């Protein structure tokens, strides 16, 4: 069986990695990884990717911080990130869940907020650390933009959502709740 000179192959591959893969490109791939519960928004816009590094052994090391400690989508997103980044010519990918940076809703990007709006979620209010109960009243309805709304439950179908009711257009709606 014909076999290429192995050293040359490794050498060529290394050159290729050094030439082609930058942290910027990893970030671009991460934009393709979506939140499984809100498929319009990427993990980057969600603000959960806190670090991307390529180490000397050309292993990509990514840190992510969960939106909620018990978020069941974490494992799914971890696997999805690995799968998509591995399509690049890299030697390996590690995705570490870390609480060194603690996520809050202020970390959602402007584009992310647009996507939440497009998904018909009321937006989380920006806050300066801890949420106050007043923030949960008179939230703007994502359907008719009225503020004549009432909080029905600060817990919703997933950990990150609250349920409100619009007294103007008479619809229930969900808010991506501020944390």
């Amino acid at each position: 069986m014909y076999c290429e000179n192995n050293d040359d192959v490794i050498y060529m591959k290394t050159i290729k990695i050094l030439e082609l893969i930058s942290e910027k490109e990893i970030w671009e791939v991460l934009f393709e990884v979506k939140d499984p519960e809100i498929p319009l928004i990427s993990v980057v816009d969600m603000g959960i990717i806190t670090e991307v590094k390529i180490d000397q052994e050309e292993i990509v090391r990514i840190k992510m911080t969960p939106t909620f400690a018990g978020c069941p989508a974490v494992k799914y997103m971890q696997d999805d990130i690995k799968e998509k980044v591995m399509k690049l010519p890299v030697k390996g990918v590690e995705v570490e869940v870390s609480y060194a940076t603690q996520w809050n809703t202020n970390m959602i990007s402007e584009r992310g907020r647009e996507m939440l709006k497009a998904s018909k979620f009321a937006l989380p209010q920006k806050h300066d650390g801890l949420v106050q109960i007043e923030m949960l009243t008179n939230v703007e309805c994502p359907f008719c933009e009225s503020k004549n709304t009432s909080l029905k439950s600060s817990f919703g179908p997933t950990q990150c959502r609250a349920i409100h009711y619009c007294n103007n257009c008479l619809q229930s709606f969900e808010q991506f709740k501020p944390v």
Partner: protein
Amino acid sequence: MNLSNEYIPAVKDLIFRMADDELILGHRNSEWTGLGPILEEDIAFSSMAQDKLGHAQALYQVLTGMGESDPDTLAFGREEKQMKCCHLVEYPIGEYDFSLMRHFLFDEADAIRFDMLVNSSFEELANVTRKFRGELKYHTMHAKAWVIQLGNGNDESRIRMQNTLNECFPLALGIFEPSGFENQLIESGVFKGEAVLQERWISEISHILKLANLSLPDIDSVRPSYGGRKGIHTEYLKPLLDEMTEVYRIDPKAEW
């Protein structure tokens, strides 16, 4: 890890207590799924259950980083006597008034505990509690709203809330059972200790109970339900563990 070796057993003990409380109460809260008195409460208890399990997992993960087994093994692979949860979290869900009062008393203590830990000298613990604090805000808001509303409702709701408070109070005092490591925790700057926590808790719940028109039993007249932190549990824990760990015991590597 920024912790000197002599303090490691004390810190592990603290984290085991916290994690086991979250795991067991999370499990109990999840028993309301499908049974809540109204749909919103069904959802609230289920959602809080999910948060609590998340807190347990993150705390077990900190222990894993300190050389203990992986989080699943810690959650499902320990014997009853190795568990360090307090008695309050072990009790069955009972009637809604009991579960609500337990949720109120426990989460007020949890919120203050996390506030005390965000500046802990042990960074890993400080980091996770900073995360939990934002989530817990929703739990305490929820409990407070209902306790005040039902305490000021009709005779039946007020009497039921008062009776359940009387029943829960000695159990809740068990949250603060001293560990034997208190001095080390204080000395190392990891945690200011259960006594300080209990004092702050009493002051916070007294304020809310007053708004709810409910009276806190005299603390000197009740015997705190101690033992949980030392592995001595109520009759309710074993059956819960048996059920919760059934799949794990059949196949520890099972995934679903």
